Each structure stands twice: as C-alpha cells, then as structure tokens.
C-alpha cells in the first residue's frame, strides 16, 4: 500500500518544494538548494501592482458574467418548463470541453479589431468603426466566463437539484405565495451552494491562463499567470519573480478555495442531502420562449459561433465573411497535419493521453480504494495530499516540475516521460474525484456478500467489483484522456522541440503564423475531444441506466 502512496505523495509535494525554494532564491537562478535566500522576490511584487489589479479586474468581471450565465441557465433548465427541457443540460457542458484556448482563438477570429468576422459584418452593414475589440480586459473576461465558467452552471444546478422539492411544496401548502416561497425558502436553501460556486469560480479565474495569453499578450495586457510566463521567457529568465508570483497566486487560490469549502460545509443545511431530486418545474407560461431564447443565445455565443468561425476560417485562405471573395482550401489542414508542425505534436498527445489515462486509472483506482474503502489510519491526510494539485495553478505546477526534474539526475527532461509524469500528477484530483464517485455508488454489501459466499479477494474483484465499476472506470479513463489531450498550463514549460504536444503547439502557431492555420489545428483538437466526449456521454448513459 505504501509502495503506491509514498511515490504519489512525493510527486505532488516535491515540485511545490522547488517553487518555495526558488521564490526565496536570490542567488544563481535555478540552483537547488539556493545559494542565497531572502524575501527580495516577494518585496519586488509591489512593482507588479498593475498586474495584480488586472488579474483582479479580469477575475471579478469573468466571475460575475459566469455566475449570471450559470445561475440563469441552471434555474431555467432545472426549474422551468421550457421546451426541450433537460435535453439542453448536456449541451451546456460543451464549452468546457471546447477548452478556453480554442474558445479564445475562436473569439479572436470573431471579434478581433478590423479583421474579426463580426466586425467585418458590422463594417459592411453600418460603418468603419469596430463593434468589438476582444483583445481587451473585457474581452478576456468574456471568453473566460464562457469557457472556464461552465463549472458555475454545473455547481449551481447541482445545488438546485439537491433540494428536496417537498420543502417548497410544504411552504406553498401552508399558504406562502410563489414569490414568498422563492425568497423565503428556495433562496436561503440554495444560497450556500451558489455562494460557494461563486467563490470557487473566482479562484479558477485567478489561475486561468489560456484566454489571457491568447487575447492579452498582443495588447500587452498582463495578468499574474501570463506575467509568470513572461518572466520565464526573458533573458536572463527572472525565475525569482515567476516563483514569487506563482506562490502568491497559489496561496490566494488555496485561501479562496478553502473559503468556498467552508461556505459549503457551514452553510449547507442537513436537509440538503447528496440525493438528486428532480424538482417540479414551474410553469412560466409565455415567458418560457424568452427563457428558451436566452439558452439558445448562450449556445450561440459559446458553441455555435466559435465553432462556426473556426470551421469557416480553417477552410479559407484569408478569413473573410464576404463569401464571394473567399478562397476555399484544404491547405491549412494539410499543413497542420504535416509532420513539421502539428502532426508530431498530435501523435505525442495521443500517446500521452492513452498511456496517462490507462496507467492513471489503474493507480488512481488503487488510491481511491485506499482512501475511500480501507481503514488505513491517516487516509484523510492522504486524500488531502492527493487533492493538493487542485489548488496549484497548472502553470505554476509546471514550473515546479521543471525545476524539480532538472535537478534530478534522471535524464527525462525534454522527453514525453516528464510530460506523462506531470499529467499524472496534475490529474490526480480529477481521477480521484471521478473514481470516488463511482466507488461510493457501489454498495459495500455487494462485495461483502461475495466475501461471505466464500470468494477470495481476486475472485471477488473479477466477478463482482470490477464488472460493477466498469462503466465508471471507462468514464474516468475518458475524462483523463480528454484532460491530457487539451492540457496547456503544465505542458508549456515541460515540452521541448522533441516532445511537442497539441495545445502549446497551437498557441505557438497562433502567435507565429496565420489564424487560418491555427484555426485548422484548433478544429482537429476540438474534433478529437468531441469524439471522446460523445463516447463519454454514451458510457455515462449506460451507467445511469444500469443503476435504475
């Protein structure tokens, strides 16, 4: 047991040690242990007040938009009788799977100054002024809200679904009107869930990177994550500043996430159980067409427009909405898939995705069993350590891994091995959470009964546990696979010319070559992820059917 636990704990904690050490290092950068130690790097952060201001502005604006969207959509889809009903629910998750990177590029194509497709239409119809400029603070926040904010919808609708409808019904029976019930009963009961969702989303926004990178760098609008990237790219690299910024960001995120968890724990009432209810939908009459329009508007800006724009651009020689002027070509896809640019990165990402998911599910399965089924003393502490990467921004974690592995005399830097190890470590919380949900759904007595019937451990696993867990394990595999394919933050620092992966390669193309070519690359990535997502939804459906 300890053979599995200790290496995993080391994987998580070792890189963090290096970030701490580097943030205090004022001697030769990258040397461990540091030659000289002081708090100078942290003192230097006062020069970064503008960047911190930018970060807070973008995070607050993005959180506000994400929560407004998330709350409205969650309420409409779980509580009202709009046409189409819960068929929309799954579609709401699509922006998350599309990734903020692809979303940011798509909106760059849509609403970039002068050449943006929406601006082009505006020029044709109205006048020479631009309608939008997505390369701005509001633009970054908008893209973050759409593509990182999906979690707000998921958390808030979970809070709304976990409320026993009889709590509302009894208020109505006792004579409370619709509005009185909504304000006096519904709101206080869902408030902790909503509040903790807001704080959680805010923490995510603080650590968000892709949108700020794609849309902020051209206009030199920096937030903390992009500033960390920038200081490592300077010559000589300013590792001290990067580490100090990273550590501060990590602390800010940890504190915020703890607040979110505290609100959830202290504020939630005993009546709200883990059970999912399907609350009776409220008849909203003619208003339901307005609500439907709102849902469709969200799907338009978060899914249809971005994918449409990328698709159109990827088949054109020069992106334009004036179709008669456009020259359609498959050249972008040919270039994208040719070995020099994306081809090798694509193959590498697939290799990584498949192997990390396979090994990950095996090892994380054992870890899940230890944490949630065994009686090992200290398993709560183990859970805490394994969930740790959740609070560390990917980018910062990647930096820590870079320093950690450069200082180890095992020559894996610059190879796929390092990326594989990094992916495994940062996806520990994802895998653990998914598998725990699966393990906890299977009643313990099903295994105990096999035991009493005389079946040994191996036989039990083969005939009872594994068959029951199979759909959940498949879902966990797919989730880790998707997460690996789209990974950006940690990969940025760890990939080398010999070990390219997709997301950073797309970013490089976006910064150095045409938007038409990067659109084609983004489409290939998106298509791969969507195939995996469709399989995932299929697996999830059979799983819920087997339970019923």
């Amino acid at each position, binding site marked *: 047991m300890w053979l599995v636990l200790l290496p995993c704990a080391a994987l998580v904690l070792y890189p963090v040690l290096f970030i701490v050490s580097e943030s205090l290092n004022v001697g030769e950068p990258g040397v461990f242990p540091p030659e000289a130690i002081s708090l100078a790097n942290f003192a230097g952060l006062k020069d970064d007040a503008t960047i911190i201001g930018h970060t807070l502005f973008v995070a607050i604006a993005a959180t506000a938009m994400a929560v407004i969207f998330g709350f409205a959509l969650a309420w409409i889809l779980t509580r009202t009788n709009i046409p189409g009903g819960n068929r929309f629910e799954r579609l709401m998750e699509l922006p998350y799977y599309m990734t903020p990177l692809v979303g940011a590029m798509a909106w760059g194509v849509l609403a970039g100054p002068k050449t943006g497709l929406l601006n082009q239409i505006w020029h044709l119809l109205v006048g020479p002024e631009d309608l939008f400029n997505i390369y701005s603070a509001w633009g970054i926040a908008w893209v973050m809200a759409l593509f990182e904010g999906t979690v707000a919808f998921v958390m808030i609708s979970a809070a709304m679904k976990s409320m026993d409808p009889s709590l509302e019904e009894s208020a109505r029976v006792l004579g409370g009107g619709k509005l009185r019930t909504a304000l006096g009963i519904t709101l206080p009961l869902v408030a902790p869930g909503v509040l903790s969702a807001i704080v959680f989303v805010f923490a995510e926004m603080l650590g968000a990177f892709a949108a700020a990178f794609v849309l902020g760098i051209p206009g030199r609008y920096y937030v903390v994550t992009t500033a960390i990237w920038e200081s490592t790219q300077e010559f000589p690299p300013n590792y001290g500043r990067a580490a100090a910024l990273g550590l501060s960001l990590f602390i800010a995120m940890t504190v915020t996430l703890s607040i979110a968890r505290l609100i959830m724990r202290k504020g939630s009432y005993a009546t709200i159980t883990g059970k999912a209810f399907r609350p009776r939908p409220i008849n909203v009459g003619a208003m339901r067409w307005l609500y439907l329009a709102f849902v469709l508007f969200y799907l338009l800006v978060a899914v249809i427009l971005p994918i449409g724009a990328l698709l159109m651009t990827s088949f054109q020689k020069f992106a334009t909405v004036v179709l008669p002027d456009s020259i359609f070509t498959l050249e972008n896809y040919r270039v994208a898939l040719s070995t020099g640019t994306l081809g090798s990165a694509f193959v590498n990402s697939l290799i990584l995705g498949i192997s990390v998911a396979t090994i990950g599910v095996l090892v994380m399965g054992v870890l899940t069993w230890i944490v949630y089924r065994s009686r090992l003393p200290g398993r709560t502490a183990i859970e805490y350590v394994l969930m740790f990467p959740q609070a560390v921004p990917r980018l910062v974690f990647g930096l820590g891994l870079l320093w950690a592995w450069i200082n180890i005399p095992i020559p894996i830097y610059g190879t796929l091995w390092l990326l594989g190890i990094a992916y495994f470590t940062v996806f520990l919380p994802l895998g653990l959470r998914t598998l725990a949900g699966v393990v906890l759904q299977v*009643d313990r*007595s*099903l295994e*105990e*009964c*096999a*035991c*009493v*019937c*005389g*079946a*040994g451990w191996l*036989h*039990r696993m083969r*005939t*009872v546990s594994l*068959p*029951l867990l199979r759909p959940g394990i498949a879902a966990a595999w797919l989730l880790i696979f998707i997460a690996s394919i789209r990974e950006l933050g940690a990969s940025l620092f760890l990939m080398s010319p010999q070990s390219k992966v997709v997301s950073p390669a797309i970013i490089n193309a976006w910064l150095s070559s045409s938007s038409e070519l990067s659109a084609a690359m983004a489409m290939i990535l998106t298509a791969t992820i969507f195939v995996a997502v469709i399989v995932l939804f299929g697996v999830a459906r059979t799983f819920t059917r*087997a339970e019923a």
Partner: protein
Amino acid sequence: MSDTACIEVAGLCVAYGDTVAVDRIAFSIQQGELATLLGPSGCGKTTTLRAIAGLEDPTTGLIRLNGDSVYDSALRVNVPAEKRGLSMVFQSYAIWPHMTVAENVAYGLKVRRRPRAEIDKEVRRALDLVQMSGFADRPASKLSGGQQQRVAVARAVAFSPSVLLFDEPLSNLDAKLRAEMRVELRELQQRLGITSVYVTHDQEEALAISDHVIVMNKGRIEQIDAPEALYNRPASLFVADFVGAANLIEGKVRQTGLVSVFETQGGQFLRVATPQGASGSETKVALRSAYIVLQADPSGAENANFATGTIHRRMFHGDFIQYVVDWPAGQLMVRRPPTEMIAEGALVSIMFSPEHCVLLSG
C-alpha cells in the same frame, strides 16, 4: 460451554477508536437454533453479527464456529470471512445487479467449484424453497424488493452452509409482506435445520421467530432468554420497556416474600409474585398491558390485584383495542381484544394477577 454449541462468543469487544461498539459480550447458540440479537439502533447487534461473519475486526475476544476458533485474540487467530464457511442475508439484500437470478444463487457453489450438474440442481432447489423457480433467468436488476429478498435467501442457503446470519433482512419490506416472510423464514430455517443468528430492532419479529432472544443495549447484553420468558419476566427496566408494551408503575416495596407488597405513588397496594424473593429496594413494577382485565361492572376476584378506574381514551387498532385508563397510580395502558368495547369515560374495574407483575429496580 456446552458440547453441542454451534456458535460460541466470549469476551467479545469491538471498538472504533475510543467508541466501544460491543463491550465484552458472551453467548452461545446450539445446533439448529435460531437466536436473535435484539436492540435499538446503535446497540452493537449488527456489529456483533458482522464480527461473527468476519466482516468486522474485533479488538479482543473469542468466536468459535462448530468448535473451531475463527477469531481468538489470545492466539491471534482471525480467519478471513471467505474461509469461515458461513452465509449471510444482508439488509440491502446485496443482489448483484449485473447477474441473473440463477447466477446470483449459484455464486457460492461456483466459488466452491462444485460440478456443473450439482450447481444446477442446488440452484433449482434453493429457488424452489423461496418459490422463485420461475425467475431463474431474469436479470437481478428487474426484481421487486420482496423478490430480491427471496433471491438473497436462496443465495444464502444454496451452498448448504452450517451457519446462516441475517442482518435485519425484513426491514425494507412493507408490513404485510414482512409478516408473511417472517413465517417463511422460520419454516425454512427449521426445515433445513441451519443454525441461525438473526439481527433485528423489531421486538415483535424477534419474539415471533426465535428460539432464544439476546437483548442488547449500549454494546452489552441485557438478557438472554426464550421469547415467553423474556416477555413475562424481563430482567431489567430496559428489557421491560423495549420488549412488548408494558406499564412501569413507580412506588416502594412494603413487604417481601413469595408474594411481595408494593405501594404505588398513588397509595395503591399491589401484590407482586416474587418466587425468587425480592431485595426490597425495587422502585418499579412492570405490568404488560395485555395482562390487565377490564370489567364494566366492578366486582373483585381472589388473589388478583384490584382497583377501579376510568376509561380516559380508547384507540381501536383492529386486532386489539388500546385503552388509556386513569387510576389512582396515574395512567395504565391496557390492551384488550376488539370484542371488549368499553365507552370512554366509563367506570371500570381493573384486575391483574400478581404473577404478571415484575419488580424492577432503577
């Protein structure tokens, strides 16, 4: 301990950290007997059962099955659950949803590598026993609660275990089905002659199906007795209160002997049969509400305790009538057959025999 004891438990303790769930309990169950562990939730009955099954690790103590130690803290013996050769019916039934009914029932036989023909025969026999023969090829996920319960029992007996454990097997069924299954389980157990341990919090169920009832409270055993003895002569206040419907009348012992005299707080004198004698320090008399006779015309009887009272409330339950009677010592709960209807507010004479009074302290 006796030679024919099939299950022996001695000095058994189970603790989780600082909480002691089972505290030094001891009992033995004879071959072919059905013994019930009865008590409120959290009393340690399920923990005890799971310790016998090997699903729970005790802290200290001894468990023997058919004379062999399966757990012995002194000798560091702890046979894993799958090697103990006993069987169990779980509260949740634990029917494997990914198998058919027949596959569920065959599991214990397949694990034991019995020949194909024997497995088929035993599965058919077990399903016949629970009247589920028609369901053999049905997916187990498509069964009702009652059917799952039957399959769980068939699976538990299919490989002819020597000991069968029941963990509140009927608690998820509705009242009518529960009463039916109670009869079926008892008949099945007697026909197969399987030594059984049955856990329940339902005292009626425990009294109805057991040879012996082991009453537990807060991790300890309060009393082990046959159902009639438990009902008629509860050894403690807890048992009197938990098993059956009893009146607990407070007061003082005034005179001890084969028949003692007890003065209630209302100044009423009761005659209490105490064949084993009484210490004189007892403060309560337990009196089953079913043993009290009410008569609309007051007239005394020899040897009986006699008082007059007023019907305060009458509740018709169908199979019986529950009366609340005001009498000098407070209120009495009285249970009479539905043929004995007396109007609320009527004066009645109350009679009960000294043999039905039990002196208790505490």
